[in-house]
């Protein structure tokens, strides 16, 4: 079935289609059922599937993640929601020491088909404790797949891939993108884990960006095209595993790299990508690779400050122009 849906509706649609497809799938989290989700991204699921399969939980993030792990051990395929990605802080142990390591520590006796979803990112004025792009907190944890969908289409397909995956997947849903519209094809084949999307092709600069930053990169691409500069925008879609090959293929054309990351640079996927490419593909570069990230500060509340915190489309364009000076 093909439908026009928003990013937000694509979430409910993917969860609904998975609940429909497999009776072992259950969905739970805080206010996800009766209220339809804090972001209204799970509206209608309780009515459609009933309280056995769509459950409101207490405000207990450790118990939510732990319950998903235990339920998976017992034979279910749980989808659990952490309302804001920032709340990973209160269930970090369950994600990092339990969910991610269970299969390894038991030498494969246990596999955990758990999907963990959470609303991610800045730009909506939620302040320092409700705006973080939390993916980098989990980037150096083996045992988790990390997905960062940027469009309604990708959100739908990635969520379905996640639920069908036999290992844990953390899906970061960007709260500043919930209103984006897209065309959802519920019969499209399952998207493989770890496959990047070349969003726009070009031969001058390779720009790698996720979620909100991907859209800003596309905006910059339009601005630059008017100047005769054609950038290639790559959305990795998954941070673990990372599609290095897609970036390498692009660099072979452009020889210039800009990585745009929402969030501070230290310990992030963007810096790690640059380090890997420099180590293994140094010969491809005609210019030093650039990182464009948020400053090393918490996310501020004021609109003026938050705008300054987030890399903008003009920032992306400026970085590309500078790269082309080499």
């Amino acid at each position, binding site marked *: 079935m093909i439908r026009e849906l928003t990013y937000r509706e694509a979430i409910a649609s993917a969860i609904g289609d998975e609940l429909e497809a497999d009776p072992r799938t259950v969905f739970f989290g805080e206010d996800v059922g009766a209220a339809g989700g804090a972001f209204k991204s799970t509206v209608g699921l309780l009515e459609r599937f009933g309280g056995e399969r769509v459950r409101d939980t207490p405000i207990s993030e450790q118990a939510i993640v732990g319950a998903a792990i235990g339920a998976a051990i017992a034979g279910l395929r749980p989808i659990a929601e952490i309302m804001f990605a920032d709340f990973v802080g209160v269930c970090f142990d369950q994600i990092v020491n339990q969910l991610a390591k269970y299969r390894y520590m038991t030498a*494969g006796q246990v596999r955990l088909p758990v999907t963990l979803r959470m609303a991610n990112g800045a730009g909506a004025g939620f302040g320092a404790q409700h705006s973080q792009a939390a993916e980098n907190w989990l980037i150096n944890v083996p045992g988790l797949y990390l997905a960062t969908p940027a469009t309604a289409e990708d959100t739908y397909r990635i969520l379905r891939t996640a639920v069908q995956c036999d290992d844990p997947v953390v899906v970061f849903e960007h709260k500043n993108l919930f209103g984006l519209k897209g065309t959802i094809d519920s019969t499209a084949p399952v998207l493989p884990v770890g496959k990047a999307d070349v969003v726009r092709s070009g031969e001058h600069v390779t720009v790698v960006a996720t979620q909100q930053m991907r859209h800003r990169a596309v905006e910059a691409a339009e601005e630059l095209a008017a100047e005769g500069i054609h950038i290639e925008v790559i959305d990795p879609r998954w941070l673990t595993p990372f599609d290095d090959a897609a970036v390498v293929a692009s660099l072979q054309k452009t020889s210039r790299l800009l990585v745009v990351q929402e969030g501070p640079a230290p310990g992030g996927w963007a810096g790690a990508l640059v380090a890997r490419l420099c180590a293994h593909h140094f010969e491809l570069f005609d210019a030093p690779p650039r990182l464009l990230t948020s400053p090393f500060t918490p996310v501020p509340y004021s609109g003026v400050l938050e705008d300054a915190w987030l890399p903008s489309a003009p920032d992306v364009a400026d970085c590309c122009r500078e790269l082309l000076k080499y």
Partner: protein
Amino acid sequence: MTAVYEAQARCEDIWETLLDSMLRIRYFENEVKALFGSGLVRGSTHLCQGQEATVVGACSRLRPGDMMASTYRGHGAVLATGASPTAAFAEILGRDPGLCGGKGGSMHFTDLTHGAIGSNAIVGAHLPIAVGAAFGAQHLKSGAVSLAFTGDGSTNIGAFHEALNLAGIWKLPVVIVIENNHYGEYSPLAATTPISALVDRAKSYGIRGEVVDGNDVLAVRNVVGEAFDRARDGNGPTLIEADTYRFEGHSRSDPGKYRPPGELESWLARDPIERFADLLKEREIAGTEIVEAHRQQVGAEIAAALQAAKAAPEPQPERLYEDVIG
């Protein structure tokens, strides 16, 4: 006590299983002590000697399909499910045929074939998981119960409270047994915990609480049997406080100097194995000679298991990369 459990307390049909199981744990850990002394155990190891009746009595109620989660002090709990002592020794020695292929170690004994879903080294973290396993069982209407052991000290960690609350609100078939050995590492319970009856914590989660002499294997078997029946009948969880004592230090590096003089001796006089042997004699179920024959036989079994484990191969280096994800 209900009539049926009084009848079972007579134990004519089960005493050999209970006795052998307690002896197996005791002798297994004697060897672990010796292995540690000769430098063959990496890291640390936490012995449960003195607490055997609690795990054996409780696990004697497990049926196929039930699930049991334990702590890093989990040798006894996992052996009590029927796990192989050879595989357990091999795990401690880091060998390939170990319970977890040598990837877990002493603190992470897991044997899914016997329902031992994991031993956890993060205090309290297994409780949300055990509760989740109970949710899985409830959802699948499998009739299974989830059993978890946990320490007295763990009743002060958030995961304990989140887990109990979720178990209470969802009326899950989970039985949590607090192994109250009166110390959390080197701190006596009274120094960390403002109440002395840990079972009182059940009340605030709408959960039934029971107290039992944790060094009386039949008493534990009875109280857990009743709790399992309630759980299987849909009558929700039980928190059981089992009063017991560890004969050894917290871990192998701990000589236990913080114990007041005479305390250990008073508990040694209540050794759960000797008490059970006395009971068997008193009730004319088995005399000293018969019990002695069991000691010999289990002793020989453990010696052979250790022998076999020592002869087992080390893991191949490639195993490092297996069972991470994918």
